[in-house]
C-alpha cells in the first residue's frame, strides 16, 4: 500500500507543475512554494508530523498522469482538472478539490476587446495537453466564433508566443492567467476577460484502488477547510488545542479519541497539518492572495459560509 511505501521511504513524493507562481514554483534556492505544494506538505505533515518530508517532481502537463500511473510519484498535486474520463478510465482517483478554477481569456488592452464574444477570428495561444484545449474548442464552437489555435508544448513558450504578438488571446485557467500575467513584459497592458468558460475543479490525484491513501489525501484537505471554518489557524492552534472545550475540535486535533488510527496516522495528524501548513484561508492568502503578485480574488474558493463553495465534511 502507498502509505507503507511512504512511511518506509520517509517522505512523500509529489508531482507538481514546473513553475506556476502561486501554485508551485521553486525559487532560486530550490525551495518550493504554492497552493499545490502546500497540499503536499499537508499530507506529509499528517503522516510524519513534518511538512518538510515532501519531495517534489516537476512534471509537464504531458507526463503528469503517466507518472502517477506508473508509480513514480505518490500523489499528483499539480493543478489537474477533475473530469469524468480522467476519474473513470485512467486508473486514477481524484480526492478533494483544493481550488475551484475556471478557464478565461487574456488579451492585450489595446485591442479594445471587453468580452469573449468579441473574439471572432482571433488567434489563440495555449499550452498543449490540458483540458484548456478542449474548453477553448467547445467555447468557440458553441458560440459559432471562428478562431486560429496555436498550441505550444510548454506554457512558457505559449506565453512567449502570445507576448511576442503571435496571438491575440492567451487562454488557460484564470488562476494561471493571473499568475502568468506577472511574467509578461508589461503586465499592465493585458486584460483578463470576465467570462469563465469552464468549470475547473482542481484536485490532487492518487492511483485508483488504494482507498486508505486516497482518504488520507482527501482528509488532509478537508481538515484545512474545517480549520478555517472553526477559526483555527497555525498561529492559534497550539493554544486552542490546550484550552478548548469544544468536543468536535478536541476530536479533530486528537486531544480526544484516536481518529488518526483509522487511517493509519498518528493521533495528532490534523493538528500537525494546521500547525505546519495552516488552514485553507492562510494557505490561499499566503500563495495567491491580494498581497502576492498573483493576486487572485477568493471568489468561489471562499468558505460556503462566506458565499463560496468551499465546504468540507465534518471530522467525526
Amino acid at each position, binding site marked *: 500500500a502507498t502509505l507503507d511505501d511512504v512511511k518506509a521511504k520517509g517522505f512523500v513524493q509529489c508531482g507538481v507543475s514546473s513553475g506556476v507562481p502561486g501554485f508551485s514554483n521553486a525559487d532560486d534556492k530550490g525551495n518550493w512554494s504554492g497552493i499545490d505544494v502546500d497540499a503536499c506538505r499537508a499530507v506529509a505533515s499528517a503522516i510524519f508530523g513534518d511538512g518538510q518530508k515532501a519531495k517534489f517532481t516537476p512534471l509537464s502537463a504531458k507526463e503528469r498522469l503517466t507518472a502517477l500511473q506508473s508509480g513514480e510519484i505518490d500523489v499528483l498535486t499539480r493543478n489537474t482538472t477533475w473530469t469524468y474520463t480522467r476519474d473513470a*478510465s485512467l486508473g486514477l482517483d481524484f480526492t478533494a478539490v483544493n481550488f475551484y478554477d475556471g478557464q478565461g481569456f487574456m488579451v492585450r488592452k489595446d485591442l479594445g476587446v471587453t468580452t469573449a464574444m468579441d473574439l471572432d477570428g482571433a*488567434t489563440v495561444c495555449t499550452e498543449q495537453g490540458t483540458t484548456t484545449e478542449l474548453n477553448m474548442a467547445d467555447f468557440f464552437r458553441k458560440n459559432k466564433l471562428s478562431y486560429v489555435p496555436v*498550441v505550444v508544448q510548454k506554457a512558457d513558450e505559449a506565453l512567449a508566443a502570445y507576448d511576442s504578438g503571435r496571438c491575440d488571446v492567451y487562454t488557460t485557467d484564470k488562476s494561471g492567467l493571473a499568475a502568468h500575467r506577472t511574467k509578461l513584459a508589461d503586465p499592465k497592458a493585458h486584460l483578463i476577460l470576465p467570462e469563465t468558460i469552464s468549470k475547473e475543479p482542481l484536485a490532487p490525484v492518487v492511483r485508483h484502488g488504494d482507498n486508505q491513501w486516497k482518504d488520507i489525501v482527501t482528509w488532509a484537505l478537508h481538515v484545512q477547510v474545517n480549520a478555517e471554518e472553526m477559526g483555527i489557524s497555525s498561529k492559534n492552534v497550539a493554544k486552542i488545542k490546550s484550552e478548548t472545550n469544544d468536543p468536535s475540535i478536541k476530536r479533530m486535533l486528537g486531544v480526544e479519541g484516536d481518529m488518526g488510527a483509522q487511517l493509519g496516522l498518528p493521533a495528532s495528524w490534523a493538528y500537525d497539518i494546521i500547525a505546519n501548513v495552516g488552514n485553507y484561508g492562510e494557505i490561499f492568502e499566503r500563495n495567491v492572495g491580494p498581497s502576492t503578485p498573483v493576486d487572485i480574488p477568493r471568489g468561489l474558493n471562499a468558505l460556503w459560509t462566506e458565499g463560496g463553495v468551499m465546504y468540507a465534511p465534518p471530522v467525526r
Partner: protein
Amino acid sequence: MSDNTTPNNNSFLHDAGNRAMIFQVLLLAVVVFVGYYLFSNLQANLDNRGISTGFSFFNEPAGFPILIHLIEYTEANTYGRAFFVALINTIVISLLGIVLATIIGVIMGLARLSKNWLVARLATIYIEVMRNIPLLLQMFFWYFAVLAALPAPAQSYEFADFLLNKRGIYSPNPMIQDGFGLVVFGFILSIVASIGLVIWAKKRQTKTGLWFPAYWSSLGLIIGITFLFLAVAGFPIEFDLPQKSRFNVTGGMVLPPEFVAVLVALSTYTGAFIAEIVRAGILSVNWGQTEAARSLGLRDNLTQRLIVLPQALRVIIPPLTSQYLNLAKNSSLGAAIAYPELVAVVMGTTLNQTGQAIETIGLCMLVYGSLSLSISIFMNWYNSKMSLIER
C-alpha cells in the same frame, strides 16, 4: 586412410558450429524471457491500476483543434482523424525539410570547397555554428526571431496580393473554375512535347554530334504552352484574396510562422551536416579522375557533372540517408514551437486526454519506425541503382 583422419579430442564443445549454436540458443532464450517478463509485468500493472487498454478511443471525437491541417479537420472529428492530420504534418515537414536541407547542404558543401578563401571560410563558420548548437535552441531562435521581426497583422507588409505579418505569409488562394480541363490538357501536351524534344536532341547528337540545350528548352516549352492554354481558356482561376480583418487576416492561403520556423530550423541544421557529407564525398573522388577528365579536354563544369558527382554520390548516399532519418525524427521537436506534428498531437494532447500511454507512445514509435524504414528503403534502392551503374 580412415585411421589417419580420426580427429583427436573432438569434443562437442570444441566444434565451432556447436559453440555458436549453443550461444545463440541461450541468447534467444534470454531475449524471449526478458520480453515475456516485461510484458507480463505490464499486464499485471495495468490490471492492478485499472487502466483500460486498446485503441477504441480512436473513434471518439477529439474535441481539440489543430492549427495546420492539410486534410479537412474540425474539433468534431475523431482522434483517429487527428492522428492522420498530425501524421501528414510530420510527413510534409520531413519531406520539405529533406529537399531544402539537401539543397542547402550541397551549396554549402561546394562553398566550403570553393577556391575563394572568404566563401570557404564563411561556409565553414556556417557549418560549425549550425552543427554545434542544439536544434531545440535553433528552433526557438527561428520562431521568436521570425515573430519579433514581423509586424502585427494591422501593419502587415503587402506585396501585390500577398501579406506578411506575425500570423504568417498570406497568399491568394487559387480556386479552379470551369474550363480548367483545357489547361490541364495543355500542360500534359507541353510535357509530351518536351519529352519529344529531349528524344530529338539525343538523336541529333548521335547523328551530327551537336548538342541542343534540351532541358532548358523543355522548361520554357512547358511554361509557354501551359500559359498559352491558360490564356485561351480565359484564365479559369479565381483567387480568394487575403483580407485584413479585425484581429487577423481572413481568406487566402496562409503559411503559419510555426511551419516556417520548423522548416527553416530543420533544414539549416541538417543542411550543415549534409554539407560535410557532400564535401567528404567530393573529396573522396580521386584527384586523378579530375586530372584524367581535364587531360581529355573536358571543361570544369562537365568534369564535375560527368565524372566527379556520379562517383561522389556513392560515398554520399549512405550517410545522407542517416541525415534524412535524423531530420524526420527531429521534426518531433516542432512540438516545442506549436507545430502540430505527431508527437505534439498524439503523445501530447491525445495522450493527455485519453491517458492511453502505451498505445499512443507505441503508435508514435511505430510511425517513426515505418517512416524511417521507408526513407531508408528508398535510399537503399537509389544507392543500389547508383552502384549498379558503376559495376
